[in-house]
Each structure stands twice: as C-alpha cells, then as structure tokens.
C-alpha cells in the first residue's frame, strides 16, 4: 500500500498545475499585502484616541490599533481566503484529476490489465490526494505567516477572532499571547487540510464516473458553491441539512482561531460529517472500479 501511495504522490507532483498553484498563491499574497497595508495605515491614523475606563484590550485597540494589525493578523485574514477560495479550487483539481485523467489517458487500463487490486488503487489515490492537500495547506500556511511577519511584524498580544459557533457573528473579543495564536493558526490550517480533503472527495467520487478531470473538478466546485449558498443565503430553509453541508464542515476551522474557547462539540460533529463524506466518496469509487469494464 505504501508503494502504491508513493506512486500516486509521484504522479500528482509531476503535473504542471503545481506551478499554477504557486503563481496563484504568490498573486494572492501580493494582493493581500496591498490590502492589508491600507488597513494598517488607516488604523495607525486612529492611534492615541484613549478613552477612560475602557477595558485593557479595548484601550490597546484604540491606543495602538496598528499593533494588533500585525503579521499574524495578516496570516489569519489571508488564511480565510486561502482556505475558503484558493485551496478548495486546487483540491478539486487534484481530486478530480485522480481517476478521471487516468481513464482519459488510458494509463488506468494499463495498470488494471495486470489484475492489481482496484480497491487498493482507489484508497492509494485518495490518500495521496489528501497528502498533497495537507502538504500545500501547511506550506502555504507557513509562507502566509512569513509574508505577514516580514511586512507587518509580530505583536506580543493577538486579538482573538471568530468566537462562538461557526457562521455566527463574533460575540466576544479578547487578547491571547502570540504563541497561543500561532498554535491556533496552525491547528486551523491542519483542520482545513482535513476539511478540504472531505470537500474535494466529492470531485474524487465524480472522477470515478467520468473520463474528464475538468468535469470532476467542476462538479466538486458546483457542489461546494451550492452548499455555500444554502448555508449562508438560504440558511432558514436548509436547517435540516445544514449540519451535513460541506461548507459547515469547512467553517469549523474558524473555531481554531482561539484556543481558549474551542467549541469541541462542533468540531466533533464536523469530524463525524467529514468521516461520512470520506466513507461515501471512497466506497462508491471502489464499487465503480470493481464493477466497471475498461
């Protein structure tokens, strides 16, 4: 199995779309630095307007708000776009590529003509897609933070964000140490990698049925955006299915931005839904590959 996974990773990493990913990431960083510089400058102009009797963290916000708008805050802001927009697209591409492109090129036929286990092949492909997503998520998370610190420095205290249940408006604001914030940032990135794996598994499932990776990737994206619209636009009409929406699972990573108030109940529920996606999106391709003739 390890050999199979290694081979699948080698195949995935040989593709030119990695350059597109890196260019896309660099472009995102460039835009985010431009935007964040404006926010930073605006906050600096507000400095010194001290209000008496204000709690410490709020007074700090008002006295020197630019200090809170540092590299880690940049990483958390751009991480939102990275984990919600850029990485899902790349994940759909990799997962959609997995089976469909081999069907399209004919390499799957060469492989299967040797009587190798089709179940093992599907699992190896799924694991390799996850490993690639995990690798890019973590590498981009590191680069994202490094870019932020390089341009905006790192404050000792960090403002907490996104408290409360996923999708809710922050109900509380506080300060945590930079160390705690960094740990929570990487936990969020790690969670995102798992959530992205569950999200992209829809493309993986479709890729077992179609011969074109573009169809599988687009199918996954459509599923993702429909889920997004249901959760955030028509939430009141989709209460029954809301816990199972993939965007709801993705949203769970925001819980990690504050260590002090992680909603473990929500995380566990999200993990259960992730497992459901993984199970369905591995089992169906296994069945398809074992039944289908090539």
């Amino acid at each position, binding site marked *: 199995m390890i050999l199979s996974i290694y081979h699948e990773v080698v195949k995935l990493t040989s593709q030119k779309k990695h350059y597109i990913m890196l260019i896309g990431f660099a472009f995102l960083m460039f835009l985010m630095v431009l935007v964040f510089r404006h926010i930073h400058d605006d906050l600096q102009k507000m400095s010194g307007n001290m209000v008496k009797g204000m709690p410490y963290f709020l007074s700090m916000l008002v006295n020197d708000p630019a200090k809170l708008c540092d590299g880690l805050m940049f990483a958390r802001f751009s991480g939102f776009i990275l984990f919600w927009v850029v990485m899902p697209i790349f994940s759909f591409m990799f997962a959609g590529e997995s089976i469909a492109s081999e069907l399209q090129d004919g390499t799957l036929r060469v*492989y299967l*003509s040797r009587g190798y286990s089709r179940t093992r092949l599907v699992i190896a492909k799924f694991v390799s897609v996850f490993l690639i997503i995990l690798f890019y998520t973590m590498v981009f998370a590191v680069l994202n933070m490094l870019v932020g610190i390089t341009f905006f420095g790192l404050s000792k205290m960090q403002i907490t964000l996104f408290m409360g249940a996923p999708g809710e408006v922050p109900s509380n604001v506080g300060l945590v140490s930079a160390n705690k914030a960094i740990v929570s940032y990487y936990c969020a990135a790690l969670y995102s990698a798992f959530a992205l794996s569950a999200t992209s598994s829809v493309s993986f499932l479709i890729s077992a049925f179609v011969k074109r990776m573009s169809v599988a990737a687009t199918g996954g994206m459509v599923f993702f955006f429909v889920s997004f619209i249901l959760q955030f636009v028509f939430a009141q009409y989709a209460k029954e299915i809301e816990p199972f929406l993939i965007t709801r699972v993705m949203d769970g990573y925001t819980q990690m931005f504050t260590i002090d108030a992680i909603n473990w109940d929500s995380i566990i529920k999200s993990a259960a839904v992730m497992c459901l996606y993984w199970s369905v999106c591995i089992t169906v391709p296994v069945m398809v590959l074992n039944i289908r003739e090539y």
Partner: protein
Amino acid sequence: MNDCVLTVENVVKSFGKFKALDGASLSIPKGSIFGIIGPNGAGKSTLLRIVTSLAHPDSGRVTVNGIDVESSPKKALAGTGAIVDSPAFYPDLSARLNLDILSRGHGKKYRARREELAEYTGIAGWMNHRVREFSLGMRQRLAITLALLPDSSFVILDEPTNGLDPSGIVDIRNLIRNLGADLGATVLVTSHMLGEIEKICSNLAILNHGQIAAEGKMEDILRRSPVTLIRTTEPGRAEALLKETFGPRIISLKLKENEENVLRVETSDDCAAELNETLVKNGFSVSMLENEPDRLERIFLQLTGGESAVRNEVRS
C-alpha cells in the same frame, strides 16, 4: 493443455444485442508468438480485454497458466504484461518512473531486470527522459519493456506496429520476433497488418463475428489452398496438362492478370514441387515457380467473407 499459457474456452460477450464474442475458443502454446487477426468489430479487442480482466465474459472461461482470470485475476495475470490499445504513459514522468509505476516493480532484482530489458529494447539511453519527448517508435519499445516487467513471461501486444514508419515497423517486428528466442516469452499480438503477422507469428487465429474461424500453426494455415505462380512457355498447353494430371487437386487454374505467360494455380494441398516436375518432364520450360505473395491476406479474406464483399462491391 499444460503446455498452453492461455486457454480461452467458449467465451461469450455481448453488448446489448451485439455479440462481440460468440463462443470463441483458442489456446496459446508456451513459447509461441501467437497472432490474432480479424476484421474491425470481430472481437479482438474484447477478447484481449477479457483476457486481461478489463472486461468480464457473459459465459465461458479464460485461464492463464491454468489459473482462472475471472476468479483470481491478480494471481492469473502475475506473469502477464499487456498493452491493450495504444501504449499509454504519464508524459511528464521519466521512462524509468513510468516503468516503476505501471509495473509496480521494486527491489534490487527488479531494478537490474529493468535496466537489462531497457538495454535489450534499445531505450537504455532514454530512461531519464520524459515520455513526452518520445517518438511513437520509442513509446512502442517502452511499452514492450513495460510488458516484460516486473517478471512477465506472457506478453500481450495490441497493434504494436500501428502508426510506425517502415523502419520502425522492421525494428519492432525484429524485437517481437526475438522475444521468444532471447527471453523465453510467449507473445500474443494483434494487428491489422497481415504481412506483419505473417512475418512475426508462429501461430495464428482468425477471428470473425466473435468466433474463431481458423486456428493453428502459421505454416499449416498458409498451406490451406496454396497458390503457385508458374511462368512457362505455352501456358495454354501447360494449363491443359496440369488439369489432366492433377484433376480434383486443382481448385482453380488460370492465366494471371497483367502478367505474361504466368499461370496461377490454386491447389488443395502444397504440390509446387510436383507441378514443376510434371511440366519439366513434359518438355515445358519453367522460368519461375513461386508461392503467391499475400497468402495470409487471401486466406483471411476467404475466411472472413471479405473477398466476396470486395467482389460484390466491384459488381455494384
């Protein structure tokens, strides 16, 4: 049966109402280079797909080295390397990585065999190049190397000379022909190029409408209703003499079109030597006596009904 690498017994495979294979049976002896020919839609690809477990038969049985392909595909195909359809590779990976991934080979012994085979098939200098840079001929060589890895003794090649230039065809032909002698491999090859099959294969099966129309050693099949071309003086008199002497053994005897003084004699058995002897003894001068070329093509057209189809086309 034990000397057979592949045995196909009464295999039936339908796609809706269309029967791609209709009780096809054949057996491939160990060490042979076995050719399968047939018109388009005869069932060649379907048969190869069933043999390689890419498709499942409706009924019938396929065994490789005595192991049932349907019930234990991995075990049955352990020593089999197949290239069904055109050779497909990962274009952005090197030839070496392609071989490793598609053959799932690993270990020191495998690596030694891989390099040895690359040397044998003439791609040793290209092992680090990406497959994208390979010509079609090089891809075919790579496909043959792949089929022999990790430790295959039974190689299935589907149209291996398709799309190659004449020198490429000769190279691949020689390579396939030598596989048995040099590596002890049994080769199953399909092709539309009948001349190539005739030159490469020791055994042959002709597939038509999903059934085996003929199967056996190449020489035995070619011996069926052999045609001899004889250039002699006074062909009219020679024709009468031969008809009288050989009687029913002669199936047809006529002057060959567009050739001067050449008789085309189709006989029920191979009797070229006797024909020559009779003519010489009766004072005829025989300046040429040879088997008609494209014998396989003629037999193929006879067995598959292609000849009558061509005639009907000409008439209409």
